[in-house]
């Protein structure tokens, strides 16, 4: 089984790009692969706690929580991007990591495949 690193920079609300990234991660984990999901820029909001489920907006927190439980999925948000948006450790869901940007590059280093999924 391989390791997949996905970097995503798009917002949870206002774009379906993050939905795609999480669906891709879910499919890879179901096939037995390990996935690192790096969230930078507006994508950091996926790590936020207390997200609400409305039919008009994407809701990925439930899927992310299930993925974390598998032990094959790491979700990490960019420290600077998060802090700039007022998101600190206490504002993030349990199991969501916070690192600086070099962590993403290091994850890509050891990945079998990297999917860098752009910004807005």
């Amino acid at each position, binding site marked *: 089984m391989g390791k997949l690193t996905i*970097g995503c*920079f798009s917002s949870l609300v206002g774009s379906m790009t993050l939905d795609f990234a999480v669906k891709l991660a879910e499919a890879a984990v179901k096939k037995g692969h390990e996935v690192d999901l790096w969230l*930078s*820029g*507006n994508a950091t909001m996926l790590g936020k706690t207390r997200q609400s489920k409305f039919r008009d907006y994407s809701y990925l927190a439930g899927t992310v929580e299930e993925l974390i439980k598998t032990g094959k999925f790491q979700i990490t948000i960019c420290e*600077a*991007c998060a802090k700039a948006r007022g998101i600190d450790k206490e504002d993030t869901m349990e199991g969501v990591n916070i690192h*600086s*940007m*070099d*962590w*993403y*590059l*290091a994850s*890509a*280093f050891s990945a079998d495949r*990297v999917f*860098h999924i*752009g*910004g*807005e």
Partner: protein
Amino acid sequence: MAIKKYAFIIEKLPYKSETSRLALTHAIASQTVEIYLDDGDNVEPVIAFIGEGVLNCLKDQKALDIYGVTSLEMHIKNALLLDLRVLVCKEDLEKFGLTEDQIVMDAEELGAEITTEVVPYEQIHQEMESADHIMFF
């Protein structure tokens, strides 16, 4: 021991979104990636501006004065200071009627020893071909 080449390809406009800024900050983060890697392993970054992305390289940006944020010009200069290769697509620069005099070509005032390279797209394509990972912004 391995060196992996990452190509940071920047196509987005400056300031319209955060994208090109994130490209540069991620590329610069390659300077500290070693702390996560095994001894001898490292990342070799190359930054290339293509399409509308070449507009990130314009000189005399006033982002700090107007928006209170670091300019993309400053980030490019920091990249040069850190010896990151910065390439600008020659054809796309010409498409916008720009010349080397109008873009950030060096960071001499900071002490940078390398300069921006204006190169044909073919060379940027080769850089992508030889990269282990392409980060497209």
